[in-house]
């Protein structure tokens, strides 16, 4: 106890001595930003744990349909029945429900009928019933990170983002197990799978990766490509897809590594470096962006021609990805967090949902989307509706 008193006393003295005045320019900056910022209506400002259902709205497209019908049929049908038609089309609006969890969720994943959320503060993983939002199990990892690296071979895979071991979580037993890999340095957060085989970047600085057969529990090949300058961020089409161009004179973009012959490497130039990627249908969809900027470009990579085509541009560098059918869902987690639904057949945004708050992780249970809210000890379920 004496030690505790000494430590807290010294801590308090040290905290007291740290500078406490904001820079002189801050007042003017805040004043300027306040004048440019519109206040939000109270219903958009949620408190923790409160389910929030966005009031039904008629989208611009629906309004257009409504006015077109009005113009064509106004004389014969009448306003009352028209109102009914417009209302009917807008009936299934998105439903957003927040559920409290014990801890600060970050990464999200879906496996074996459960939503899994990694907690940055407790370094635990919560298993959540998607129907009720209740945490049915909490597994302590005792390690960072909790980005929910990947799902494959019937298990959840978590890197430590450090030199610690890879962790495999078996949903049947709710047991985390360390998976040591020889030569491992700092493991990348993302662990992409193609089938049961994971591409694991075991040392991002050295550009070293392994292909790991998760069902057999063995490393089946190893590659060492420089300058990788990052991690293998996606897997698909018989290849691993990595970040390229942070190192030497290589052009900015991504790198495609053949699964059978790691020396077979294709460089694909993009304006911005890749952040996340996911295969949908016959293409790889990749979010490209640079941390800290207000810009991200969604690109479609044709694996037959190895060409990247910009599809859409967004105002925030980091967009998390989830796939439902042929729809790609992108999460712009900057406040207020916003979901964009992209039809990958037409390359168009077909729906936008403002969730509110700041969000980070994104996953899907096949019908609904699940987000982790920053600083809120909440996960949020979004039923996109029609």
């Amino acid at each position, binding site marked *: 106890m*004496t*030690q*505790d008193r*000494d*430590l807290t*006393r*010294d*801590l*308090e003295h*040290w*905290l*007291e*001595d*740290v*500078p*406490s*005045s*904001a*820079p002189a320019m*801050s*007042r003017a*900056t*805040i*004043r300027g*930003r*306040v*004048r440019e*910022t*519109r*206040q*939000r*209506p*109270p219903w*958009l*400002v949620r*408190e*923790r744990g409160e389910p929030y259902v966005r009031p039904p709205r008629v989208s611009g497209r629906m309004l257009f349909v409504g006015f077109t019908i009005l113009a064509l049929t106004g004389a014969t049908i009448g306003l009352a029945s028209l109102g009914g038609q417009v209302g009917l089309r807008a009936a299934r609006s998105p439903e957003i429900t927040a559920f409290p969890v*014990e801890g*600060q969720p970050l990464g999200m994943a879906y496996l074996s009928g459960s939503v899994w959320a990694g907690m*940055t*503060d407790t370094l635990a993983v919560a298993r959540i019933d998607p129907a009720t939002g209740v945490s049915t199990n909490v597994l302590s990892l*005792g*390690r*960072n*990170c909790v980005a929910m690296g990947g799902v494959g071979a019937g298990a959840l895979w978590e890197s430590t*983002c*450090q*030199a*610690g071991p890879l962790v495999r979580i078996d949903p049947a037993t709710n047991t985390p197990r360390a998976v040591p890999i020889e030569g491992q340095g*700092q493991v990348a*957060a993302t662990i992409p799978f193609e089938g049961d085989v994971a591409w694991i970047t075991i040392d991002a600085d050295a550009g070293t990766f392994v292909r790991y057969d998760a069902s057999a529990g063995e490393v089946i090949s190893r590659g060492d490509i420089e300058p990788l300058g990052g991690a293998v961020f996606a897997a698909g089409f018989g290849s691993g897809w990595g970040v390229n161009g942070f190192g030497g004179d290589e052009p900015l973009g991504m790198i495609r590594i053949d699964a059978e012959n790691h020396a077979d490497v294709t460089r694909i130039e993009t304006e911005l470096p890749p952040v996340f990627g996911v295969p949908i249908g016959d293409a790889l969809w990749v979010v490209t962006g640079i*941390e*800290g900027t207000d810009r991200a470009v969604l690109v479609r990579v044709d694996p037959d021609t190895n060409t990247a085509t910009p599809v859409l541009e967004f105002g925030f560098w980091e967009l998390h990805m989830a796939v439902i059918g042929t729809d790609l869902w992108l999460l712009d987690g900057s*406040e207020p967090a916003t979901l964009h639904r992209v039809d990958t057949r037409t390359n168009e945004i077909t729906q936008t949902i403002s969730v509110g708050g*700041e969000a*980070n992780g994104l996953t899907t249970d096949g019908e609904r989307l699940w987000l982790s809210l*920053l*600083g*809120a*000890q909440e996960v949020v379920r979004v039923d996109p509706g029609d």
Partner: protein
Amino acid sequence: MAVIARPLAVDHARRPRLNVVAAPTPPSPAMTQRLLVVSAAQGDPEAFDALVERWLDRLFAVAYRILQDHDAADDATQDALVIAWRDIRGLRDPDRFDAWIHRLLVRICYRHAVKRRREFVRLVDVDGIELGRPDTTNTIADRDLLERAFQRLTLEQRSVLVLHHYLGRSHAEIGDILQLPEGTVASRLHYALKALRAALAADERPGRPVR
């Protein structure tokens, strides 16, 4: 002692003339803040400027202690105040502005920390370090040592330590700010101190890598 302004129950015709100028009652600081919050919530930017004047340094001090980075603390403080202006209409009880603004600030600090966490994580594995028993007769004279150890804590651990040991907030008040049960706050404080002690012990042991 505050002067209470009220009608005098006297016969004005017979009241002696006094050379006293009745001063208006100065509102209490809490009342002033309440009025400013209500005015700001009604869209008055000048009232919000006055709130910024009151809170800027205090919030910066908290952010700086949590983030341990001057520029990041400045950014976080600015962001928190701008978001406060944007969302203040959602604050149902003006008297809870204090807890609310701290909650916003800590959330913004989390955001900064999450960004940094993606790049590289330094974390003290409390369970993996044999804490040993440091010499209890010596206090920690080396402030750099304490600073380095503090920087190795998670943001959540730093937050509770700052709120409790710098702002002097009780477990219940911290629970209100962080929206955690009191028991969780107590537990978090306990483990934060444990982690701090572990980090100090690790630093004092030469050659041992600290992740």
